[in-house]
């Protein structure tokens, strides 16, 4: 089974619910960290939610010298093992889409892990601009 984010920018209102959902889902120590997803405005009142594409040839995995990023074969998500991460930011620099992020609150790298298979961002998107769909 394969899942994929389906983004319909025309439905996105830039309400940032996805951001909140992401940050709270990954909350640690009562401090909500940085979201892994961003609605980015590209024109007046026009937004696109941008998040990790879990690339097949992932530059983030390749660039990590310490093997902290690995693909979860079950969900297909590229997951960051924080215990192995030394915060060198190589993945942040290498991701061609800018989707490996730095969380300045917890001082660590954050990376979309598809919430273990059912991404909160898609679940909470009020306009269905973002959907997590089965494709095969």
């Amino acid at each position, binding site marked *: 089974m394969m899942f994929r984010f389906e983004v319909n920018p*025309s439905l996105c209102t830039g309400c940032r619910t996805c951001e909140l959902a992401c940050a709270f889902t990954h909350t640690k120590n009562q401090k909500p960290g940085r979201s892994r997803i961003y609605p980015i405005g*590209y024109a007046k009142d026009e*937004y696109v939610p941008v998040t990790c594409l879990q690339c097949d040839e992932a530059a983030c995995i390749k660039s990590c010298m310490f093997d902290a990023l690995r693909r979860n074969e079950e969900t297909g998500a590229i997951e960051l093992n924080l215990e*192995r991460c030394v915060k060198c930011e190589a993945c942040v620099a290498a991701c061609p889409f800018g989707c*490996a*992020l730095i969380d300045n609150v917890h001082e660590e790298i954050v990376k979309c892990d598809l919430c273990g298979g059912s991404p909160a961002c898609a679940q909470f998107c009020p306009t269905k601009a973002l959907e997590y769909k089965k494709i095969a």
Partner: protein
Amino acid sequence: MLLAVIRREGVDVPALCEHEAIEPCGSCRLCMVEITKKEWDGWKNHVTSCLYPVEDGLIVSTHTDQVMEIRKTILDLYMARCPGSEVIQKMAEEYGIYKTSYITVPDADNCIMCYACTRICEVLGKSAIAAVERGHRKVIAPPFGDVPPDCIGCLSCAHICPTDVIKWNDEDGTRTIWKKNFELITCKECGKNIISREFADYIIEKREVPAEYFETCDDCKRAEVARKMGSLVTRAKEVSL
């Protein structure tokens, strides 16, 4: 290793020199625990759990009086060695030590000589720094105490250091660490600092990541993604109109 199992079970055992990205080395001795087995007839041993292989039938005690005494003494010794380290102070306070019983080591910095930095640099494949001298005179330093020729300015050593001893500075597109200056790649769009040129080159060479990925910062790359997707939407709208 045993430490991972102990932690998995939710038991808090302190450790300073341990990190998943590097091989355990057993230098800080804080993760020491008492082990025994039924068939050992009451014989006990103290081992560093970061290095001890997991075995069937092992009975592990993490907080016996003896173990606590060892941790206390070690933290007491650390307090004499690293009088300025907040990490050490906090840890020691948890064990009821507020002031060291020993003489403060002259000229000591906050380095606890755990080799995390040298080990991570070795994993990286550079080994730009190493332990120099031995015994109580030992320090972590680049060759000849000079600018390390093999350093690529990735900051892994500084980030992994448990007591934050390794200082670095990013200023005006230049990164300085171990007294060595590195050119920082600045985003061609917004001018934000990305990573050092040498580190990027190393990744490009070793891991075959396209060089152009490193030319723009993450913010600008995301904005670019949004722009591209947006343009598709705009075009679709134009078509439907």
